[in-house]
């Protein structure tokens, strides 16, 4: 009953009966008002543990030493403030102390100070003090030995079905999704090949800032004033909220377990014990939070350095994660790399890696070797399946040979699983720049290279971890001429051999082929000067840009080429197997282009050079292995077309005249500002966003050949993001099998495509018939109406 709520008093209450009145009235408000606060009489008392065990004689000496030591910290103890229990445990029933002492301090403030400053106080070599409040001893002693979870944390909340996070992968047509943010609306669309995208979900005000996909596509994050919202499953329900006021940036860890958020606003102070906010008092003033994605719990918050706060220049992502989320790290004040362990969130080995001057670092991507056990199992299966079919010796031999070849092609990890690459620029004239690979947690440098006059660098790991490339900005000794060198380390070869390519031009774009051994570079002949600043140079000028494709060749042994007849036969026979050291070679350059960026297909082989923003949307599609196919086709045609002739001892094959790199299309999406391959490497989406251009906002979908498939105009387009896909679950062997039998797999889809297009045709024919009928009806009625008017007039 609420206080002073007389309306609910029983009507037959006898006001003279005090007992009945007391039972009926609620005095809780009065009780609260006049409650006497419980005084803690022991607030000046601490229990100090870890004190030397002494006898009666040394007792006062001990007290005076403690009093002196504590006084050094400004902590005062009452005159007779010591109370040390003694027991007759010594030799011959001698009274000995028990190793702890009760100390009564002058004031509660003294006790607090002692608790803060003298905790873990090293009294001498063998004795460290542990301080506890007198009251806490009782509290801790009362903790039951058996862990009772129900009593401690309460009953578990009932299980809530969260749905299937990978629903979109079950699409029959294996389509991909795009999240589109335009005006105030976020739409989730199916990307269609032959028709406009189909809306899956469309919500106005889904986000206040922008949207982002998690790296494997399970979650869509929306950014709001109060924090981050996370959406997923088939219905795109809200799964979790992360309360971080003023949040600006977000970054998922690679396996989607953690979420890092940044807000320019420091986290506000909260009182201890206040559970209304996800952070505690220790997080006040911090800017960066790391969250557990599934539970929405804050795991740890981080402060920024004073310089970062002052300059408002926070590199993002602030933390870089190792491939397995085991570690995350950042550079602090160009002086050290701090590596933390997940999920403990603690500094690795409790200390940072000191690297004065360090400017860049990155983690190596890593794919574990296929487990020995599964490999053995597979081998057994293969043997079992091949035995009945190929019982002959020849068959066995063939199989064995194939296996050996497979092993040779197999990429083996020579590096430890966790490797950091970092760059320290040149200081002074004598300390060259350092490029290094460091293994963790051992902190051992596994490869190092010095580069003279390297002033800055970007680190580009090959997405499969096969190579690492440092793009180093350098000058000559005088500091007048600047150039760029690309330092490539081959990580799948012994000792990680390094190669270097130098460019006098400015590099505007760089990208590794995700599954191959090639990389693409875009350079410009423009240089910044009084008229052109570096930004303009990087944006590019038409006709000044050159697109290059390079290849990294592994060291290998080349078998002598078998030559048929001709004058060079004898010489060839003499030539022994040649060892090729490997290195970086230019495959092809395309100069005088209007492109400033490069995008490889996620599956490799195809590459798009694009002239985005300033360059008005030129799109150039290339096939880097066109020559390979042509040669294969020629071979399939019976080898008749591949004629080998020997000219002056060098072999010239006609098939070489087929260009290895072929341009598939040179097209344009006028004003394009962004471009992205879909996660399967089938399509390319080019967009014109409102951030760069006021008109013609929208998206074009292209296939790998640069054929325009469809256009979808979107007013005020802000974002168009492909939904990422998780890595395939198929084994390498299975993938190989599919690649080999692609035609039989493709047939199924071709039939489906044909069926769909005919269905589309039927619907379209029906729609058109309707439109024509409506029009004819309208015309005949309109004509009748006019005739009627004319008739009336003639009658009149």
């Amino acid at each position, binding site marked *: 009953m609420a206080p002073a709520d007389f309306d609910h008093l029983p009507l037959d209450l006898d006001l003279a009966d005090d007992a009945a009145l007391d039972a009926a009235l609620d005095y809780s408000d009065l009780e609260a008002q006049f409650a006497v606060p419980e005084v803690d009489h022991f607030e000046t008392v601490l229990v100090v543990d870890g004190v030397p065990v002494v006898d009666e004689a040394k007792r006062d000496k001990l007290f005076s030493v403690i009093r002196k030591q504590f006084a050094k910290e400004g902590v005062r103890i009452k005159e007779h403030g010591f109370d040390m229990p003694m027991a007759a445990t010594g030799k011959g029933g001698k009274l000995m102390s028990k190793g702890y002492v009760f100390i009564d301090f002058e004031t509660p403030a003294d006790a607090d100070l002692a608790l803060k400053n003298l905790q873990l106080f090293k009294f001498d070599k063998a004795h460290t003090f542990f301080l506890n409040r007198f009251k806490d001893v009782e509290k801790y002693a009362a903790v039951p030995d058996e862990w009772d979870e129900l009593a401690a944390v309460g009953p578990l909340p009932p299980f809530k079905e969260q749905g299937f996070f990978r629903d979109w992968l079950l699409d029959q047509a294996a389509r991909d999704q795009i999240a589109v943010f335009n005006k105030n609306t976020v739409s989730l669309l199916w990307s269609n090949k032959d028709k406009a995208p189909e809306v899956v979900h469309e919500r106005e005000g889904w986000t206040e800032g922008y949207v982002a996909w998690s790296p494997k596509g399970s979650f869509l994050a929306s950014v709001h004033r109060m924090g981050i919202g996370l959406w997923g499953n088939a219905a795109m329900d809200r799964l979790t909220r992360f309360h971080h006021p003023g949040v600006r940036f977000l970054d998922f860890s690679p396996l989607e377990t953690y979420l890092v958020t940044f807000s320019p606003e420091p986290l506000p102070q909260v009182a201890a014990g206040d559970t209304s906010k996800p952070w505690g008092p220790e997080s006040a003033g911090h800017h960066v939070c790391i969250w557990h994605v599934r539970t929405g719990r804050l795991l740890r918050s981080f402060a920024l350095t004073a310089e970062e706060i002052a300059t408002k220049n926070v590199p993002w992502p602030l933390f870089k994660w190792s491939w397995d989320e085991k570690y995350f790290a950042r550079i602090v004040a160009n002086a050290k790399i701090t590596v933390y362990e997940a999920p403990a969130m603690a500094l690795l080995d409790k200390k940072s890696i000191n690297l004065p001057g360090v400017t860049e670092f990155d983690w190596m991507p890593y794919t574990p070797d296929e487990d020995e056990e599964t490999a053995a199992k597979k081998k057994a299966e293969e043997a079992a399946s091949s035995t009945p079919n190929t019982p002959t010796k020849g068959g066995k031999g063939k199989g064995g040979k194939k296996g050996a070849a497979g092993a040779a092609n197999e990429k083996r990890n020579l590096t430890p699983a966790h490797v950091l690459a970092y760059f320290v620029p040149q200081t002074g004239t004598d300390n060259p720049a350092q490029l290094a690979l460091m293994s963790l947690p051992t902190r051992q440098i596994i490869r190092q290279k010095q580069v003279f006059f390297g002033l800055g660098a970007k680190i580009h790991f090959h997405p499969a971890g096969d190579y690492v490339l440092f793009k180093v900005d350098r000058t000559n000794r005088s500091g007048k001429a600047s150039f760029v060198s690309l330092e490539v380390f081959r990580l799948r070869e012994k000792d990680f051999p390094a190669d270097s390519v130098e460019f006098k031009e400015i590099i505007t774009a760089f990208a590794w082929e995700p599954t191959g051994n090639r990389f693409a570079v875009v350079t410009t002949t423009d240089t910044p000067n009084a008229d052109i600043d570096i930004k303009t140079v990087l944006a590019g000028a038409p006709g000044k840009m050159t697109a290059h494709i390079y290849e990294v060749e592994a060291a290998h042994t080349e078998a002598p080429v078998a030559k048929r007849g001709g004058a060079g036969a004898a010489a060839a026979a003499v030539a022994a197997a040649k060892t090729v050291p490997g290195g970086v070679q230019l495959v092809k350059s395309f100069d005088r282009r209007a492109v400033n960026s490069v995008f490889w297909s996620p599956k490799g082989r195809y590459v798009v050079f694009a002239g985005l923003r300033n360059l*008005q949307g030129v799109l150039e599609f290339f096939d880097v292995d066109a020559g390979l196919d042509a040669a294969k086709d020629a071979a399939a045609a019976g080898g008749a077309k591949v004629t080998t002739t020997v000219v002056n001892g060098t072999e010239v094959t006609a098939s070489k005249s087929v260009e290895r790199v072929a341009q598939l299309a040179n097209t344009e999406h*006028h*004003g394009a500002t962004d471009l992205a391959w879909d996660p399967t490497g089938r399509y390319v989406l080019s967009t014109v966003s409102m951030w760069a251009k006021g*008109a*013609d906002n929208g998206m074009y979908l292209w296939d790998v050949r640069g054929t325009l498939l469809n256009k979808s*105009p979107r007013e005020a387009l802000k974002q168009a993001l492909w939904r990422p896909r998780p890595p395939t679950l198929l084994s390498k062997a299975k993938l190989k099998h599919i690649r080999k039998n692609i035609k039989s797999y493709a047939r199924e889809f071709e039939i489906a495509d044909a069926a769909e297009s005919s269905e589309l045709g039927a619907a379209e024919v029906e729609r*058109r*018939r309707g*439109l*024509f009928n409506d*029009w004819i009806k*309208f*015309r005949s009625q*309109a*004509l009748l*109406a*006019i005739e009627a*008017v*004319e008739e009336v*007039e003639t009658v009149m």
Partner: protein
Amino acid sequence: MRPIVVVAHTRPVTRVKYNRDGDLLFTAGKDSGFKVVSSATGEMLGTYDGHGGVVWDIDINPDTTRCISASADSTARLWEASSGKVLHTWTSIAPVRSVAFNPGTADKALIVTDKKMGQPCTAIIVSIKDNPADIPEEPINIFLPDPELTPALIARWGPDQTIYMGHENGTISCWDAMSGERIASKKIFGGFVTDLQFAEDMTHFIASSKDCSAKILDLKLHTIKTYTIERPINSAAMCPHKEHVIVGGGQDAANVTTTGAKAGKFESRFFHKILGQEFMRVRGHFSPINTVAVHPDGTSYTTGAEEGNLRIHHLDPDYFKFKLDPRDP
């Protein structure tokens, strides 16, 4: 298709019109010029000199004996088509925006003045006589379109003595020419109405607007079809014999200097009239297309643009063979 480019005006072209026979092409511009060229070759045949301001609108009577013009010099003039002589001048106190002979007989003309110089937008119906001396000074009828409709930018005769006007706020209105009564009005567009052209059989008309759309409306102002592009539309025309619609426009003239020729989309764009599907674009102008006219036989069309040029396009045989749908004529 190789267009004939006619450098007709030193300032933007405001209106091009074919005569009924289709052998002549009349053109008016902001340079006060009013000219006639051969529609087959683009050869300049003559000029109608006299206006002292922008010529906004022109019309030709069905037997091509007379022309009428509207000018910002506050006059509307009746010309002898063959000689270029002024037969009659109507003087107003405000710029004249639209003129039109009434369909069929051309014994009346509609003159609409702009809301300028303190004058309201006014519609004047005048009588035209065979002998210019007989033309009475007194008009047949004068009426003021209601001010809430905003000024009329274009006015055309409909069937049965009606007049259709397109207004600044996107309204289309319909009036009785003789009584001056408003028969209907409706807000159709979100911006200036830029053009209004009737079909040959007068059962419907096409109107275009700065709001980037063109619409086919019936006489009761019901929207029958809509064609949308990404740029303001300055003119829209319907092709006779073929179910096609041509719209022209482009980036606003005010913003042209900041956009490239490609970004401006100064193209004539062909839509299938019934299916509403775009099937062809013709580039060439380097500024917004202000006016589009189709030859009465549908064999060619002409566009006039902000840069002052006309482009006469004689359509290829392929165009006539092309069918977007088997039901196409």
